[in-house]
Structure formats: structure tokens, C-alpha cells
């Protein structure tokens, strides 16, 4: 009977002619030896013969001709719809690009003013979550960069009229504007030393901003002397050592 369980599911395969080789031989041997399986297999075959008598509702050839025509027409309609959808997608993308361009053109002057300073201030003012200390830190760092650049500039190789100070002037104007903003928002509880530094830097930046763009070697030398005499870089370094001016990440690391 154990053999029967192994062989019984092979009956459909045998009837359909799907058994081959050794499997077929083994199944045939079993059928010869087992009357129950032989009878079962025969009954299955009879059942399948009966199922052959089921009338399939096959439509006429005309139906399939019509089916094919309708199918092709439907595919054509869907292709056209897809093409139209693609067109609208292109148009939509074009309109979106145009809208972005117009927005950029309209917003551009607001953010990037011709003298390039008001925009920076407005950006700072538009971020209420930005703390005063981070803004001050940003201001001091940029001031230091500008001043180091000026102090270390090799004047011999930048003789007039090749000396180009336009970038320095632009940056100075921005820093003057930021100094004004920082002074207005200076917290009452903060130490006055930073405020003094901001005021001193503002004077220097005003001088730089009013330098001639080319050939102002003498004026530049005067500014450099001023920076040196007032120990501005040293003061900046000292101010940057204050915990209140260090970035949050540095403070966290220090803790």
C-alpha cells in the first residue's frame, strides 16, 4: 500500500502520456501488480474521456476576425492617447520650466541686489531661527579671511594698474551691511568687546569699500597699517576663542 501512495498521483501523468522512461516502466509494473491502482487509473481515464465530451463554446471565425479588428483599433486608440499624454507632459514640463525662469528673474533682484549687500542682510533677517552668535561667528570668520588676504597680498606683483580689488570691495560692502544688522540685533547681555570689534572692522571695511578698484596701492597700504596697528587679527582670534562665538558642533565636541 505504501507503493500505491507513491504511484497514485502518477495516474494523470500516465493517462496524458507525460510519463517517460524508468518512471513509465515502474508505473506499468505497479499497475500490473496492483488491482486497486489499475482500477483507479482506469476510472480516471474514463472520467477524462467523459470530460472530452464537454462542448467548448468556441465562437465562429467571424467573431475572431471582428475581435482582431477591434483589438487593433483599441491599440491604436491607446497609442494615440499615450502620444497625447506624452505631448501634454512635454508641454507641462515646458510651462514649469518657464514658470521657474520667470520666478528666478523676479526673485533674482530681491536676493542678489546690484551692490550685493542688501540681499545678504535680508537672507540673514529671514532666518529667525539663526542665532545671533552663529551670525556673528560667520561675520567674524569672513572678516578674518578678507583681512588675511589683504595683509598677505604681495603688492610688488600687483602693481598698478593690474591690482584688482573689486572682489575685496564687494565683500567689504556686504560686511558693512552685516555689521549694521549685527549692531541692531546685539543682545543686551552680551559682552561689549564683540561690539567694539564689529565697530572697528566696520571702519576698515568702509575704507576698503571706498578704495578705487584699480591702482590703489597707497590706500591699500594705509589700510594694512591700520589693521596691523589696531591688532585687528589678534582681536578676531581672541574673539573666536570665546565659547559664545564657537559653532554649536564645536561646543558639543568640547563638552
Amino acid at each position, binding site marked *: 500500500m505504501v507503493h500505491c501512495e507513491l504511484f497514485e498521483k502518477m495516474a*494523470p501523468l500516465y493517462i496524458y502520456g507525460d510519463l517517460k522512461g524508468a518512471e513509465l516502466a515502474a508505473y506499468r509494473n505497479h499497475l500490473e501488480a496492483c488491482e486497486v491502482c489499475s482500477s483507479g487509473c482506469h476510472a*480516471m481515464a474514463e472520467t477524462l474521456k467523459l470530460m472530452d465530451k464537454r462542448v467548448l463554446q468556441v465562437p465562429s471565425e467571424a467573431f475572431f476576425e471582428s475581435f*482582431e479588428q477591434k483589438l487593433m483599433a483599441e491599440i491604436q486608440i491607446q497609442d494615440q492617447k499615450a502620444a497625447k499624454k506624452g505631448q501634454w507632459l512635454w508641454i507641462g514640463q515646458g510651462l514649469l520650466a518657464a514658470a521657474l525662469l520667470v520666478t528666478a528673474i523676479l526673485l533674482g533682484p530681491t536676493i542678489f541686489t546690484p551692490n550685493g549687500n542688501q540681499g545678504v542682510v535680508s537672507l540673514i533677517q529671514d532666518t529667525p531661527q539663526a542665532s545671533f552668535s552663529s551670525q556673528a561667528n560667520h561675520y567674524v570668520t569672513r572678516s578674518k579671511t578678507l583681512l588675511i588676504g589683504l595683509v598677505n597680498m604681495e603688492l610688488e606683483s600687483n602693481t598698478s594698474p593690474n591690482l584688482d580689488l573689486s572682489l575685496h570691495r564687494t565683500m567689504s560692502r556686504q560686511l558693512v551691511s552685516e555689521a549694521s544688522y549685527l549692531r541692531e540685533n546685539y543682545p543686551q547681555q552680551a559682552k561689549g568687546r564683540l561690539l567694539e570689534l564689529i565697530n572697528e572692522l566696520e571702519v576698515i571695511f568702509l575704507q576698503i569699500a571706498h578704495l578705487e578698484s584699480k591702482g590703489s596701492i597707497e590706500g591699500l597700504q594705509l589700510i594694512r597699517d591700520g589693521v596691523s596697528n589696531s591688532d585687528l587679527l589678534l582681536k578676531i582670534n581672541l574673539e573666536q576663542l570665546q565659547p559664545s562665538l564657537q559653532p554649536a558642533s564645536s561646543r558639543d565636541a568640547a563638552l
Partner: protein
Amino acid sequence: MELAGQATFSEIVARYQKDIYLWALDLTGTREDAEDLAQETFIKVHRSMSRFRGDSKWSTWIFRIARNTYLDRLKTARHKMRVLETAMPENPDKQSHLMQLKPLHDPEQHILNDSLQKDLEHALNNLSQLQREVFVLRHYHGFKLREIGDILNRSEGTVKTTLFRAIQNLRAALSDHVAISPEVS
């Protein structure tokens, strides 16, 4: 006859439209639904035939698309049915909605008059969905067990067992017509 690997869409339609229609008729139970399902199947075939890699036969691939399309439709119909039930919980006609959405397998009127045909359809309809699909694919469409497994996303072993049980159940249901007395299935 199976189509070669490189076949045009027209060749595919000409070769398989009858098979797919009959398969769709077995799945859906009505001519209208079968025609819709066959059409949707061939539209999907048209869209995706460039991706056919020849790993299987065209017939297996197309039958699988037809079945998946049918299952998608069934899901949508069941979803609609749930929406209707939610929207109209007290609707006395709810049962009629259920009847409309349930796949029908009633034979045509002229077949109903024939007792044997009626019993054959009845026996087939009483099989489980999987048994019915396996049996129809093997008996009426001539697929091998492995191919049926591919179409139905089942293992060959499962298909083999399911086919055996399907025939056992048919044999029990048609015992009046089969000369040999049935054994318990």
C-alpha cells in the same frame, strides 16, 4: 503549433486568440467578460512583447498575462464590492450586486438542456479555483505540469497533486456517468 521566438504581434494574435478567449471564458464564465479579458491581455502583450526574452514559450507567457489580468480584475471587482457594501450596508439588493460581481460559470441555454453537458459544467464548477485552472490548462490546453506551474506561479509538485485531486473530484461528481464505481476521493 508553438510560435518561434521572433514573432510579430499579428502572428501572436492569430495563433493564440482562440486559446486565450477560451481560457478567459473558463476564468470569467461569460462571453462579454471573456472578450474583454482577451482584449486586455493582448493589449498588454502588445505593450510588453519587446521584453519577452524567450525564457518560456509564447503560449505560457501569454496565458500568464491573461491570468494575472484576470486576477487584477477580480481584485478591482472585490474592491468595488467592498465599497458598495460599505456605502449601502442596509441595501436589500446587496445580494444582487454580489451576484453581478461573482464570476459566473453558467453554461449557455442550449447546453443547459443537455443533461451530460450540464453535469460536466457542474462538476467542473464545483472544483476549487486552482483545481479548475490546473485541470483546464492540462486537459483543454495541453500544457505540461511545469508550464502550468509557470502560468499559475506554483511548483510542479503542487500542480501534480492539484491535478490528481481535481480528477478525483470530477470522477466523484460524475459517478453517474462513469461506468466504473467511484472510489472515495
